């Protein structure tokens, strides 16, 4: 039985802007186990990034409201003050971001940026040791000539190398969980594959758990063990990757999978899209968020939020079409 590292219960994230409150994450539960890759998939604005950031309280400090429980090693991280949180960030939970060009400080050498994180959490270590660790980490992420690269500035690196450098930066203190917020979205397709392979390799070696945020289903298919499909701030479907791709239960998931363009599609066939747009989360939602766009919507969907039903072992769907009450007929 693999160890459960992180347990998220009832997580809510609200953003306060110009007098209005945007309810970006509307009550979700999930867990991360040791050594697994959990994906969170969804379109822009579904709350996946906000969820990842909430785990380390990286949401905008004065305009975000977080509630719920994030249990790590027995403690609720949401009760942690900023000072205590700083001890978690980088050391227990690391994070890598979407755009490596802007995510690295252009005026500080790469090696120093990696050392910085290490020295923060091990202040008694000598600079020599920190430098050594940084060099080793650079090598581990596949950057050749690490001594030279150590002294270089980010703008001298290619896109793929920058992302590798960022991974090195995040892994310097050997965190247990790595949050990867769309790590390959800004990269070329070929580089994407390399980075994903690198992440998989590192996971094999160090047993780090990865929370992979993406909007790309092919990345999910390649990388993830389990996946959460998010829509409008709530979990629509959750389960093992194979199960979900084989037998998607939620109407949203089904249409998502249908919308992946296929090589054997005829040229004259129009591309499949899901009509409509996600709802505006500044306003409270009475029913299921997908209802307005759903072909299987029922009256109950308009007024009640569907809970997660376990339709198959370890495969959950938040859809009234799978409500057990329907099966009684």
């Amino acid at each position, binding site marked *: 039985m693999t160890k459960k590292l992180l347990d998220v219960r009832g997580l809510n994230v609200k953003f306060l*802007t*110009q007098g209005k409150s945007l309810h970006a994450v509307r009550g979700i539960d999930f867990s991360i186990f040791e050594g697994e890759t959990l994906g969170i998939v969804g379109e822009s604005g579904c709350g996946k990034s906000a969820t990842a950031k909430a785990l380390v309280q990286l949401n905008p400090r004065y305009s975000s409201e977080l509630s719920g429980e994030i249990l790590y090693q027995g403690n609720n991280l949401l009760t942690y003050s900023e000072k205590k949180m700083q001890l978690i960030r980088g050391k227990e939970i690391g994070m890598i971001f979407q755009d490596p060009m802007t995510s690295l400080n252009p005026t500080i050498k790469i090696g120093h940026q990696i050392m910085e994180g290490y020295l923060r959490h091990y202040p008694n270590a000598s600079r020599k040791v920190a430098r050594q660790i940084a060099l080793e980490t650079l090598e581990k992420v596949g950057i050749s000539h690490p001594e030279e690269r150590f002294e270089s500035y980010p703008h001298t690196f290619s896109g793929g190398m920058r992302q590798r450098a960022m991974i090195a930066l995040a892994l310097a203190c050997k965190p247990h969980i790595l949050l990867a917020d769309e790590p390959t979205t800004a990269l070329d397709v070929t580089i994407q594959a390399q980075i994903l392979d690198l992440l998989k390799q590192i996971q094999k070696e160090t047993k780090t758990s990865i929370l992979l945020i993406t909007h790309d289903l092919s990345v999910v298919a390649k990388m993830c063990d389990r996946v959460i499909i998010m829509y409008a701030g709530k979990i629509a479907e959750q389960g093992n990757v194979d199960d979900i791709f084989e037998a998607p239960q939620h109407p949203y998931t089904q249409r998502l999978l249908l919308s992946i363009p296929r090589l054997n599609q005829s040229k004259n066939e129009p591309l499949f899209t899901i009509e409509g*747009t996600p*709802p*505006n989360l500044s*306003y409270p*939602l*009475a*029913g299921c968020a997908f*209802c*307005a766009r759903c072909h*299987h*919507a*029922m*009256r*109950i*969907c*308009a007024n009640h939020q569907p809970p997660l039903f376990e339709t198959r072992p370890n495969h959950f769907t938040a859809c*009234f079409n799978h*409500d057990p*009450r*329907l099966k009684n007929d």
Partner: protein
Amino acid sequence: MEDKTYLFSPLSQAEKEAAFEHTAYAPQVSYWKDAWVRLKQNKPALFGLTTLILLIFMAIIGPFLSQYTYYETHLSLKNDPPSSAFWFGTDELGRDLFTRCWWGARISLFVGISASLIDLVIGVFFGAVAGLLGGKIEEWMMRFADVLYAIPYLLVVILLMVVIGSGILTIILALTITGWINMARIVRSQILQIKQQDYVRAAFALGASRRRVLLQHLIPNAMGPIIVTLTLTIPSAIFAEAFLSFLGLGVQAPIASWGTMANDGLPALRYYPWRLFFPATFISLTMLSFNLLGDGLRDAFDPRLKK
């Protein structure tokens, strides 16, 4: 407990629309309307705007409010403090300071605004041509501007004033000799940005002449920063005029600008402070208002601040 058959029956399209119409995103507002709304919410900017309107209003009707003209002297009543007879007091020749202040307002505001408008015209023309034509022409134009810009602005103005002699038109001329460069730079950089937009390329592809594209697309879309720069050039022109006057290079008596009045009031500061106080306050208030308004406009037009 609602009826199960009812709950689980399908929802029609009409019912869906009815239930969810309030959750649709707000309609898009036009650029100008959005900017105006944002400006209205900016209290300091509104303060600046209303103060300016008041000042301009008083500049127009102020001199008519009192019974004196700006040049009549009352030598027996010189250097009198503010009273019911002379609301702002009198100067060393017994002239009514209230009337003179509002005459000064006319001069200072006129010089400031016209110099800035001329800077605007020259700057927009220069910057637009440079930005639009590009290549060697642009390079040489901007180098010319760079060399000119490196010369200390006020020094040149002072020199010109010494040579040409003072007077309203000469002050305006002197102020506009190098004042346009800032506007030109801003216009050029805006044009360069807008030129790359697809709708401009489309216009060219459809056969529009450069002049048409310039007038219909480039300049209207650069209006935001142009207006902001204009609003912020005016206070520096007013400052320059006041500064010149303070150095003795201002308009000739008996005409007064706020700057010359401040200069006249300086030696009498210890004993008759109101002679300096009133013009000084008005200069500061005017500059403050323009700066607040300019800041507010800049924030209102800034696309990055859009929700």
